[in-house]
């Protein structure tokens, strides 16, 4: 079956195939951004909660509302003794650690 005949007989399949090729091409081009994307929610939540709680010294309830985003996270551990915040979401886990009076919080590692 020639390419032209395939296109004529299956116009929708052709269109879908084309879309798939474009999508894969875009995905390849953006692979670094796409790979990093799932980290955003857990890294953002861990870092900004850590700073809200241990740099700005706001209370737990306020800091939870402060970091809330439209994407949910699954795990949340606030180790208040070690001033260490670990958050999981979209299959990734990130930790922020309070380091000192002047240094504040930082994502680990």
């Amino acid at each position, binding site marked *: 079956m020639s390419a032209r005949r395939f296109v004529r007989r299956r116009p929708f399949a052709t269109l879908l195939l084309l879309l798939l090729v474009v999508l894969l091409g875009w995905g390849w081009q953006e692979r670094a951004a796409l790979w990093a*994307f799932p980290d*955003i929610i857990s890294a*953002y939540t861990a870092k900004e909660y850590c700073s809200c709680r241990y*740099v*700005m010294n*706001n209370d737990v309830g306020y800091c939870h509302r*402060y970091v809330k985003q439209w994407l949910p996270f699954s795990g949340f551990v606030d180790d208040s003794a070690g001033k260490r915040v670990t958050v999981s979401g979209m299959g990734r886990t990130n930790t922020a650690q309070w380091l000192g009076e*002047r240094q504040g*919080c*930082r994502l680990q590692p």
Partner: protein
Amino acid sequence: MPAKAASKALKTSKLSSTSTRLSRFFFTEPLPMSKGLSLIFMLLLSLSAHAENWPAEQWSTGPKVTGPALEALESYAFPTRDDDTRQGVRTDALLVIRDGQLIYERYAGPTTADTPHLTWSISKSLMATVLGVAYGEGLFKLQDPVVKFYPALENHPAITFADLLHWASGLDWQEDYEYAPLKSSVVAMLYTRGHRDMAAYTAGFEAYAEPGQAFRYSSGDSNLLAAALRAIVGPDRYADYPWRALFEPLGIHHAVWEADASGTFVASSYAYLTARDLARIGLLMARDGRWGGRQLLPRDWIAFNREPFAGYKAHQDAAVPGGQWWLNRALDGATQPWPDAPADTFAALGHWGQALYVIPGEKLVIVRYGDDRDGSYQHNELLKRVLKAFAEKVQP
């Protein structure tokens, strides 16, 4: 010498020297003419310097203002606060300094006078001020290529300090925060691909324009400045430099400045100061870089901060960029960004409504911290109401 002791010493020395000179001038034998004149001059100088208010350990307070104009300001800045929906204007702190004295202060939500509040992009202007001290030490020039101090910029050797300070590196940066998370350079820099070494991440971008030609607001440009500061002041001084050079001389004791894993200050986003302490930076800027008797920042540095960037096109951003500060200037036939505020108003501005406004002509410094998650807060509206409540001159 700690700032508190320094300012006390300054006051005492001025007082005692004034009175000694007075008694000598009036009650002892006649002085030669030239010496007498110079003494009068010195006396006038020390009297005029003494009439200025400077904060010591705490701000001194000025006359309290009340009335309908203040009520109008408070109804705008402090409406009923909703921390669950996070909608509307949500001011955390509002503080007004007039002529070096605290005349208004109010806090809301969890923020108090002791909270070192996240300043977000006000940090950029703070880093510029830290750099200004190093500039005053003669350690670099505005037209120096940054690569001289930060070799990771080897692919962009033409970028100068002036270009970075103008957000005009020409690097192909995307600043959007929440609305385009996949393509946002700043989200990737702070939280994912760039967070370990933010300046190196920025240096890896391609150019889209020649350096110094076009304005494009970029947190990356500000972090390149922070990385260059390491070699400017030397690695030994770097970790303490913002405190030694800027915070301590101003009597700021509780500043926090987070760094990335490479140790570079996150100049784009992560400095924390109490509202009262941020106002000290404002007073320094309002008085052309002078703190008490000391010219901490060279005057030509402040002039550069306050000069509009020539490559800026009207309406590219919410205000006119100078050297890492925002200006209320009419340009290219466009009106002033904040039409109800004087043209000499300039500001450091940050995400979610953080602002430090300086209006030298009115002797006003205004700190506004907030947590605005929608676009309802307007700089012009706040400035208009603050001026109505606190400006001494009649507004035109």
